[in-house]
């Protein structure tokens, strides 16, 4: 059961990590990066490290992704070609 969940979460994490560098649009990359961070948090939960998992969500998904999205939106002109 735990192995099965581990496989699913790892697959999601790795696939979204690959998609971060594969997609053309920067905002899509940022969303996939959020998926990677959430997957990592899921792996921490499987290791019964709840505190680390939710700090991961708070800092990376909450703060870092917001920062990245802000940056992308403020430099949006160069993307439209």
């Amino acid at each position, binding site marked *: 059961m735990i192995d099965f969940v581990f496989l699913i979460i790892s697959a999601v994490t790795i696939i979204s990590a690959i998609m971060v560098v594969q997609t053309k649009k920067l905002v899509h990359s940022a969303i996939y990066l959020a998926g990677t961070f959430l997957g990592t948090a899921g792996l921490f939960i499987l290791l019964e490290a709840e505190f680390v998992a939710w700090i991961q969500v*708070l800092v990376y998904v909450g703060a870092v992704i917001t920062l990245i999205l802000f940056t992308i939106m403020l430099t949006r002109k160069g993307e439209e070609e």
Partner: protein
Amino acid sequence: MIENAYQLIVYVLTLLGVYEWIYGIFQSFGIDYVLQIIIVFVEIVILFAFVLVTVMFLTWMERKVVAMVQSRYGPMVTGPRGLLQPVMDGVKLIGKEDIIPAKADRWIFTLAPFIVFIPALLVFIPLPFGKSLIISDLRVGLLYIIAISAMSPVALLLAGWASNNKYSLMGAMRAVAQDISYTIPLALTAIAVVMFTGSLSTVDIVNAQGGTWFGIIPKWFIFIQPLGFILFLIASIAEMGRIPFDFQESESELVAGFFTEYSGMKFAMFFLAEYAHLFAVSGIIVTLFLGGWEGPALPFIPVQLTSLVIFLIKTYAVIFFAMWLRDTVPRVRIDQLLNLGWKIMVPLAVLNLLLTGFIVVAGVI
């Protein structure tokens, strides 16, 4: 000892005498974990139904409170006292055309309303509705709530960006600026409460507020932390984006903020998320400062039921306060809001934390 809703369901099934039978069937196939998954699924369905009904009731209540303040009747035609009005609204919204703007990012535009709704629903997991009426008593429940709430600005930003509309984008930018600046006092005041309980678990926080001083005053944290309570209340109303602080959708400046371009069911998802968030945040305020489900127990009635009723009464009192505030206070300006957040609320929250530290170390309470 029943600790959460899962054990409560098992206990009720055992009382009915069917649990052993069902468990036996699953065990004979060697898949007893499937039964656990089914029970968790039942919990999710009950929670989801509860949230939907609550949201429908809250939209009706909001209209009634606005009408009461403005000396009107509000919705009266559909159902008794207009109670079926939310159902009609839902039917109308389902029937509407689902418009996607030509230059919008279709994929994110469709996904964003659901990403907005998921955190609003996930916050309910460690919320104690009553004694043992909790989906899961996480050891880091309060941190979980703060972390999940921190995910919602990302979704708002995506919704605003994907619409490809300047009003949407400005609304989203304002929503995120507001969310970030008010999460800090919110977390700092929550930490002050945690310093008293020594635990992040919501159940431990409620248990710490049981009993009374001198037999009259309940041991709620609002009496130990009056400054913290006021800061938390203001910060959570700002985080919800309700009227004195509703810059994300201030209709006189930004049409409707980040959901300007949304219609039909996607618009309904934003609405659903907003009211689910209102209930969740009021529940968190009750849990942290107003004693949660602690209250008088009645004889012959299961404690789960009385505690649920007490929790709902307190939560609806907080919700009523938020609606009342909406009808009484005009909107402030965005620079005033950010000044209030960074120059007044954050220093006061730090001061509150410092005083709490002294009190805890001195061991006065």
